[in-house]
């Protein structure tokens, strides 16, 4: 059986990844990104939510040479090629932190808490990082 035929038999589920941590102070953001890429490789319906400090992961202009860590923010721009196109950010989180859509490295949809709650209700599986 070819790879594609096998895929047809698979059940596609709605996976949501909720990202709530800043990028370099802990390993959560990077780990989440890795899991997202793996889920995408299995042709699942993937949504990403960035709320609380998670919105900092998408900040433009990260330059990590000075802290000796890998800058993984460019990888968010590759998500589209993995057919991960549903990126949502929390308006509440942006407002509290003085961050606007223009500050972000990728195109996102800004949602209210209410809209995020509805979206969450609609998922099969939710991973929180």
């Amino acid at each position: 059986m070819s790879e594609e035929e096998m895929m047809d038999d698979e059940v596609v589920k709605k996976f949501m990844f909720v990202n709530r941590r800043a990028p370099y102070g802990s390993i959560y953001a990077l780990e989440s990104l890795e899991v997202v890429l793996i889920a995408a490789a299995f042709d699942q319906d993937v949504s990403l939510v960035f709320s609380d400090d998670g919105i900092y992961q998408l900040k433009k202009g990260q330059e990590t040479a000075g802290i000796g860590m890998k800058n993984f923010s460019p990888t968010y721009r590759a998500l589209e090629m993995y057919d991960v196109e549903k990126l949502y950010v929390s308006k509440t989180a942006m407002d509290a932190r003085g961050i606007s859509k223009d500050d972000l490295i990728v195109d996102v949809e800004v949602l209210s808490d209410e809209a995020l709650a509805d979206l969450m209700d609609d998922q099969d599986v939710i991973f929180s990082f």
Partner: protein
Amino acid sequence: MAIEVNGKSFETDEEGYLTNLSDWEPGVAEIMAKEDDLDLTEEHWDIINFLREYYEEYQIAPAVRVLTKAVGKKLGKEKGNSKYLYALFPYGPGKQACRFAGLPKPTGCI
């Protein structure tokens, strides 16, 4: 583990991937290919160079599916298919070509 290229030693992990991406030089790919009984042609180098550029831009080694699509866009439709890429890299364009290019193993590759 390590491989020797022109008297210089390059550290690799247990699966043969270069530990430090920045260590890479073309000789590394040549030696790795020789160990896999492969002669690198211009077509191989197109893919290896493409992978290095991709990594530079996105900081990841692309999954095969993504690589195939991206190669098609950049190098033409006749090269953007798995038949072409597997013919060049029989152990898998993701795994083998990434290894030659000094990249880590693609995320999601088991």
